[in-house]
């Protein structure tokens, strides 16, 4: 698959070690990955890049991951973006309440991350098909 055909994932993460691991594992699985280091920047980049999926930590500066998720889902231009909250905080209920489509607890488990992203990607495909 060429670079522009790959599914785009926007990752909101400020820990460079996690950024590096996420980039490596997601790219190896065939995805295109872009980063935002805080919540506001992520909101701007989401509107600009229109990624299929956003993977967001809750504990990020400027706008936390849950508020970011609510903002995305409230905006018609970004509400289609599927959100995976990926955090050290045990906040699955809060994430789902905020409109997140999936939740994973850190630290990073490669198999779980890729499996969860794949499920979201297949949902993107189904939702496109039904439109």
């Amino acid at each position: 698959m060429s670079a522009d055909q790959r599914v785009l994932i926007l990752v909101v993460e400020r820990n460079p070690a996690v950024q590096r691991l996420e980039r490596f594992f997601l790219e190896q699985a065939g995805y295109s990955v872009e980063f935002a280091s805080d919540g506001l920047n992520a909101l701007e980049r989401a509107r600009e890049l229109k990624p299929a999926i956003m993977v967001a930590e809750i504990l990020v500066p400027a706008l936390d991951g849950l508020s970011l998720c609510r903002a995305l889902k409230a905006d018609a231009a970004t509400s289609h973006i599927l959100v995976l909250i990926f955090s050290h905080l045990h906040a699955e209920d809060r994430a789902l309440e905020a409109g997140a489509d999936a939740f994973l607890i850190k630290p990073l488990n490669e198999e779980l991350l890729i499996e969860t992203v794949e499920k979201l990607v297949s949902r993107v495909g189904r939702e496109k098909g039904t439109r």
Partner: protein
Amino acid sequence: MTQKISAGATGLDEVLMGGIPANTITILMGAPGSGKTILAEQIAFHNASPETPVLYLTTLAEPLEKFIVHGNNYSFFETSKVGVSVFYEDLGYMIRETGIQTLAERVTDLLIKYRPKLLFIDSFKALHELLTSETERRTVIYDLATALSAYQCTSFLIGEYAPGMVTELPEFAIADVVLNMMRHITNVREQRFLRVEKIRGSDSIQGMHAFAISADGIKIFPRILTPRFSPTYRPKVERVNTGIKGLDDMVAEGFWRGSTTLIAGPSGAGKTIMALHFIRQGALQDEPSLYLGFQENPMQMARIMHNLGWDTEALISTGKLELMYRSPVEMQLDQVAAELFGRIRAGKVKRVAIDALDDLERSSVDPQRFADFIYALIQWFAVENVTCMQTVELSHLFAVSGTNVTQEQVSNMCDNLVVLGFNTERDELRRSVRILKTRGSAHDERAHTLEISGRGAAVTKAKAK
């Protein structure tokens, strides 16, 4: 519930209440030669499988080859796992090339390459030699902690840390578990102990736990604690025949099953022979019985029993009698307790004779610990319904003052206290026996004669006045 990984070293999971919490950072600290690398490799090989790859990073303390050569001395070191599920890498070489500032980056490279579930850095402390300032030290350790916490992996940092470093070095702040391996040397005796200095989000058995190193690796003997539950109340008291003619009649209700009797007396007063009668009687009554001695080896003990005309071999061969010997020079209290209760819980022992407490006391590093140990031991015997006879040597030949006949108040802890001694009658030395205490029963308070002949010991009652 916290997920845990088995440490693979006998006893350590028990100390850590189920194992090492997964996805945490553990520091294995201790002096040179304390067994840190053995424990680390034991944990590594125990857990390694194709689904659970293990990455073992060596640094600046010892070359990688030495780890392999050293590991080969132990049975857990399965050579077939090296390069398949246990991967060794020389981290020291990598950071010498790129600088200590790149430590977190290099470790992340290796996490990506091997995707380990367990990671070891040995020696982590040796990396401090490359750190030139406190700021650099904090930054590098912080970055490494960030990298390790990013990936689902249980990490172990190994180092020759002294106790004072726990509050000074930054790696102790990031560690979730700190295991301290210690050597306690007194004169020519050496004992090894492990202590959990820190554990986050989990519980552990506090205190110092003895451990031994053998070709099978490290075996830990968790410190014996007082049982958390009381012995079951038995409405019908069962009497136990001690096998010492005349002694049982001195106690109105007899010696109870599950009780502990202390036989205290000077050298030569008959303590050992009474203990031997006690376990032999148990074996004859189909109660598996164990004699734990520290002076005579089993062959010497068997000979003594044979000379008394007892068919000891038959009792031993049927498993009714066991003569267990431990050298008082090499012994560790909790190791003895672990072996003893291993047999008791396997249903192999109903009676125990411990001869003598003095030898156990000498192997203790701390008098208070000895007292606590004996108390816990007696309580556990009661819980397990095991009847025990213990001996202790008294320095005075003729008289006993008060009921606290032993230094560490062991006599107060025991249910029954029997004191042996000597008295002179027309220049003739005679052995005497007197019961000073029986818990929950009346007893004959008079002193009687203890006769020892070629057939053993027997109490000859003094005529009532």
